[in-house]
């Protein structure tokens, strides 16, 4: 089985188009070069898309099973809060131990939240939209309750929290972990039994039942992974923004879904790919960067994004119809 089928990988056309526009409209720097193409700007784009990009990787799996996960933004907020709460607590252990405990605790609680989503969806047979809508509200509440609805600041001093932020917010760590996760999710989806099961139950769940697939456990796994990656994105967010924020990540689920859909994944499930989702995240990232370099009003930016999302999907539809 080939990893990447170019005929089915049409979302890249949209990205190429946006890249050409971004280069063409790039303002010039003092030395006459195009700011858009400067390495610092290009790596900035990658860092900016990493948080949504990571959430979108697991969202791809969820949508492939014909599901949806609306709770990712709330899980991210919970994760930033837990990370910051543990980091700002006094501890006798070494900095490295303290940081590891904070990250693992945030990942564990996020994964548990995702597993709960999956268990309710699979065992009680309730629509994923409804279940994750409920947990989106409930988990946001939990994050606010834990923190007393206040941001927990991570300082710039010499304490453990500041050390955490200094390490984790480095471009190499953020971009590197996005790329590593992307490759892992790509390989798992295209090469493993689990990946094939994910696509199969989204394609035709009844046929999956007649085939004897472990449908419930697949669903629980998929939503657990969504929780895990949302939690990891939360850790990155806490470091980047120097705070645990129970109000973080509002509407991130929509950005992640947009990346998945621009990447050519069928919202009805069964068809889609991780490279597509990466391209989707890059498309949004490059577009945002282009508009900001040109000082476009952020409200206008939203309107332009809306048009691009519809266009990207419409172009793919057209080509599939051919």
């Amino acid at each position, binding site marked *: *089985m080939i990893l990447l089928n170019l005929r089915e990988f049409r979302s890249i056309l949209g990205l190429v188009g946006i890249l050409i526009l971004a280069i063409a409209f790039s303002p010039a720097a003092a030395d006459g070069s195009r700011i858009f193409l400067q390495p610092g700007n290009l790596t900035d784009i990658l860092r900016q898309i990493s948080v949504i990009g990571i959430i979108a990787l697991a969202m791809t799996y969820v949508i492939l099973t014909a599901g949806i996960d609306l709770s990712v933004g709330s899980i991210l907020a919970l994760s930033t809060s837990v990370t910051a709460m543990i980091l700002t607590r006094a501890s006798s252990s070494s900095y490295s131990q303290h940081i590891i405990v904070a990250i693992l605790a945030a990942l564990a609680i996020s994964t548990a939240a995702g597993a709960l989503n999956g268990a309710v969806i699979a065992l009680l047979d309730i629509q994923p939209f409804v279940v994750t809508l409920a947990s989106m509200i409930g988990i946001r509440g939990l994050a606010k309750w834990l923190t007393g609805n206040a941001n927990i600041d991570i300082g710039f001093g010499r304490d453990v929290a500041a050390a955490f932020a200094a390490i984790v917010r480095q471009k190499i760590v953020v971009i590197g972990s996005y790329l590593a996760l992307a490759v892992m999710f790509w390989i798992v989806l295209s090469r493993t039994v689990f990946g094939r099961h994910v696509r199969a139950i989204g394609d035709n769940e009844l046929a999956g039942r007649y085939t*004897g697939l472990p449908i419930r456990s697949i669903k629980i796994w998929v939503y657990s992974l969504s929780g895990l990656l949302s939690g990891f994105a939360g850790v990155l967010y806490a470091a980047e923004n120097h705070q645990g924020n129970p109000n973080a990540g509002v509407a991130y689920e929509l950005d992640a879904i947009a990346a998945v859909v621009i990447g050519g994944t069928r919202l009805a499930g069964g068809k889609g790919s991780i490279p597509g989702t990466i391209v989707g995240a890059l498309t949004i990232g490059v577009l945002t960067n282009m508009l900001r370099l040109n000082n476009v009003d952020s409200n206008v930016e939203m309107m332009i994004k809306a048009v691009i999302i519809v266009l990207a999907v419409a172009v793919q539809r057209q080509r599939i119809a051919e």
Partner: protein
Amino acid sequence: MDLLHAENINKHYGGVSALRGAHFTLRAGEVHALMGENGAGKSTLAKIIAGSVQADTGTILVDGKPAAISSPLDAQRFGIGIIYQELDLFPHLSVGENIVIGNLRFREGRFVRFQKVESFCRPFLEQVGLDCPTSQTSGTLSIGQMQLLAIARALSMNARVILMDEPTSSLFDDSVERLFRLIADLKRRGVSIVYVSHKMNEIFRICDRVTVLRDGETIGTRVIAETGAGELIRMMVGRELKTSAARPEIQPSGEIILCVVNLSTNKLHDVSFELHRGEVLGIAGLVGSGRSELGAALFGVDPRVGGAIHLKRKLVAPRSPREAIELGVGLLPEDRKLQGLMMQMSVIENSTLAVLNRLQSLGFIRSSRETAEVKPLFDDLALKCSSYGASAGSLSGGNQQKVLLAKCLLANPDVLFLDDPTRGIDVGAKEDIYRIIAKLAAGGKAVIFVSSELPELLRCCDRILVLKEGRVTATYDSAAATQEKIMAAAS
């Protein structure tokens, strides 16, 4: 004068012709049966008259004048209504709303006045004997009541002709009696009924005339009082079909591999039979006779309410397809689009989906091993596809069925239940499937072969079990069986 006359009706679905020059004449105030085997074209003809399917060519006359019926709304204008087998009600809307929606005779402004709905609907509900408030949600009615509602709706549209497509297939006995009384009542009021069915006893009880279809052609029309079940069966089956004995004369002498004793589910009653290694057991029966439900019970889909299944001398009770597959039971489901295939996924992915565990190491699928495993099977089945990576949805019906058969066979079951495997596929693919069935039996597998086509059962099977209304009504050695005997036991 004839109320309705359909002449030279032709209809093709893809490459399959459903109707070939069929004709049909309905008089005012008669109950006219439309009979034929599964796939004879009787439902298609009824739908064409009702405007929900368009004929490729043909003429329909109403009151002797040509009638262009190209939609259900047109049919309504000509006074033609239809009661589908799968009732076309809106289950979340109320009884009254179901009657007035899309009803040309109920005209008012943009807003619905419930008083007016009540006064419009009540006479028709009374006429069919449905005693319920017009505000009741129709999904809460029983199947029998929903059918009465559908008839009330047809009457409210001033129907002079009501077509009923197998109206008793999902009814219990008392609802059937009520329906028959209603039909007699409608007839007295001058409404003509077209009664699509293959149940002999019903037709002789309530119908005046009968028209028999076979392979999309009209074989003839008879007055019920002047004909008998024997003649109708001969008309339905046809005499030119030969029962070629392609099955080799090897009597299955293998051990008993499957023994089913008094198996009962919601749809099956006390079904018992034995199956030997190397045997092909045919299951004949009309749609709704319980033949698919037998597969569902053996495969752990439908819960058992009584009886026992012994597999390889052990008492087993599969509660899910997963357990059934582990026990060595394979099922080729009846509806390959709904229950069988992943249309977006490739041919090879579909075929190996149930056996990925043995094609992997550390969770990674060994694609070379996967290809090596399916290639001989696909060659044996003569599968035609552009590549193994082609999506299952892009294949023809026959090749889709071969992919599903390959999927069943890869799991290496001892007992294979094939639920109408040749439905809607071309002749060449059918021959391939017959050949594979014979080969499996020769290799010591036990095969249960459900089919709507009696000639293929007679040709492929050692024994034939006939089901009717969830019960076994007869078992024949195929040498002793004839189509007439089987039809008589099934209808």
